[in-house]
């Protein structure tokens, strides 16, 4: 393998992994607070379509990104309201969110173009790559890490921030307490419902941001099924990463890297079935899940949220 090949694989990995990592970090927040949100795919879709539509009509990328954050959060609000306030089944509610988001995004994609026409195939402003002076000319890592778009750079901030917030701040401790043992957290005066709303919506905002990266930078435009199952991969990645933002990077790199290697292999004309390669991350996720379930010490050490997916209600009278 020569250096330029490694560099190009890294570049593609990073570009393909950006949306995935945002969505994964978002889902980590939600799940750490005890809310399983299977609606990631739907929220990403809505983020992607709304970001592109706003960018196309206003020409403002900042406004587009902001809209995606907001739309993602509003989508997540539906899930939070159903699963926190109305104690609905989170699996079904999340799935419905995916279904609804995918459908609505597809509907809007056919209506939000000029004069109610389709968005498909339109070219709008996109996030260009911004080489960082000096760093971007470094060998191997320069072009891949320091010649990317703004949202990818944003990850360099978002990931360490998430790790710090989770483990080093009081608010992060409350979040984990709510996901771990809501009864105790409640008894200590931590607002369980409020925390769960907050982090579910933060998760949705980040999923929307991931979607925005797809339509503004990665695919550059709106196409049906733009997320291609990335929302589901994000759900898997959270488990794979054992609810840890830093480990999520490894996971996203693995998924993104498989994409990149495949690209290269197809170009080189090899015949190893791409499908088999694509299966690896899913198989790996199952194995990780089995190991952490079976090996209790590890589960306690990584801090798997024990109350994940369980609605919380104070003991009612009568």
């Amino acid at each position, binding site marked *: 393998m020569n250096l330029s090949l490694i560099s190009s694989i890294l570049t593609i990995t990073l570009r393909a992994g950006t949306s995935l990592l945002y969505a994964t970090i978002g889902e980590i927040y939600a799940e750490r607070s005890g809310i399983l949100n299977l609606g990631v795919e739907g929220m990403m879709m809505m983020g992607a379509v709304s970001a592109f539509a706003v960018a196309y009509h206003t020409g403002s990328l900042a406004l587009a990104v902001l809209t995606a954050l907001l739309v993602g959060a509003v989508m997540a609000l539906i899930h939070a309201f*159903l699963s926190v306030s109305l104690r*609905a*089944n989170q*699996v079904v509610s999340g799935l419905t969110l995916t279904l*609804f988001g995918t459908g609505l995004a597809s*509907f809007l994609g056919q209506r939000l173009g000029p004069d109610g026409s389709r968005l498909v195939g339109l070219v709008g402003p996109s996030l260009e790559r911004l080489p960082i002076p000096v760093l971007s000319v470094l060998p191997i890592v320069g072009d891949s890490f320091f010649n990317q778009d703004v949202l990818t750079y944003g990850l360099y901030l978002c990931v360490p921030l998430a790790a710090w917030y989770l483990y080093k701040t009081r608010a992060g401790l409350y979040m984990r307490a709510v996901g771990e043992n809501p009864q105790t957290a409640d008894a200590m005066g931590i607002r369980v419902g409020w925390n769960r709303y907050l982090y579910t919506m933060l998760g949705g905002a980040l999923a929307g941001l991931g979607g925005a990266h797809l339509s503004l930078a990665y695919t550059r435009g709106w196409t049906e099924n733009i997320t291609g199952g990335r929302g589901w991969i994000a759900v*898997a990645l959270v488990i794979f990463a054992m609810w840890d933002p830093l480990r999520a990077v490894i996971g996203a790199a693995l998924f993104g890297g498989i994409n990149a290697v495949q690209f290269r292999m197809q170009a080189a004309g090899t015949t190893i079935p791409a499908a088999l390669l694509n*299966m690896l991350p*899913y198989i790996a996720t*199952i194995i990780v899940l089995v190991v952490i379930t079976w090996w209790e010490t590890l589960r306690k050490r990584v801090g798997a949220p024990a109350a994940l997916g369980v609605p919380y209600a104070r003991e009612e009278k009568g």
Partner: protein
Amino acid sequence: MRIVFEKRQSVSRTIRVLVPVVSLVFALVFGAFLLILSGVNPFVAYAAMAEGAFGDVHALSETLVKAIPLMLTGLGVSIAFRMLFWNIGAEGQLAMGGLVATGVALYASNALPSWSVLPAAILLGMVAGALWAAIPAVLRAYLEVNETITTLMMNYIAILLVSHMYHGPWRDPGGYGFPGTARFPEVAWLPRLYDRAHAGLFFAIIAAAVLWFVLQRTKWGFELRIMGENPTAARYIGINIERQIIVAMLVSGGLAGLAGVCEVTGVMRRLQQGLTVGYGYTAIIVAWMSQLNPWGVLLVGFLLAGLLVGGDQIQMAMGLPAAMGLVLQGALLFPMLGGALFTEYKLRFVHASPEDAVLPRESLPKESES
């Protein structure tokens, strides 16, 4: 002042009936809002949807084509949900059923007596779906591995496998490079009733009848219900939970597998793109809306299929996005999910009371990590 939920003395029947009605109204209003924004008269659009889904025999047969896999996977999923096993893997189980049935149809048709090809495809396809479901079942029963994630992952593995087979090894050499297998020999065709509606409908009806009987009248069904209603009690009265989970999931996966068999032998008559279009996920909604009642599954499956076909119709007739069907499904289910709470609880407004006890903060869980 704050709002609390107070448990009702008994489940409110009025609310139970009211929830689906209110949900339907909500969904239709939400959809109408979207339609008006698109500059379309919602009444015209809804009429076109209904017409397209139920208007004549051809429309009905297309609705049945979509209803059959929804009914079969919905029945499968509802069995698993009965015992609180969150099987969201019907999509993958369906895919494996279709895959194995394809293998039988393509490669065993000459070796087997012609009358036995279709039964063999059906049987082996069901076995394939059942075995695919057995993996998460065993993991959950013996290792307590969360089934939501494993069944979901198994979907992707199955879908990738199926797509690999018809793109690669099983691709029709005479297919001008199109991804998809050769057409099945006629001995492997599931008979059709009218247009494309096929005999899978009978499988769905028979399966619903059998499940209803088993759930209501047998010890096995009784134990399954206990597991769902009171898991702790189930353990105490000596139900073999591990075996129960595995058997129920074999049935659940088998039904989803059968749906896959019907799709390839009854509708497509070959394996190509379009086997996994989300029936397995919609099945969860079907199961939920029917409150896990087998006859309800048939009804809801039929109605939701109508929404999907109606969506396709308004796309063809009025240039509206077919996704309208999906949007309406979502808008229908959200209020149903939320409304479920009100069958068992009622809202009460109370003034804040001092009993919201506060414990010392020292006892926070301390778990530090890298």
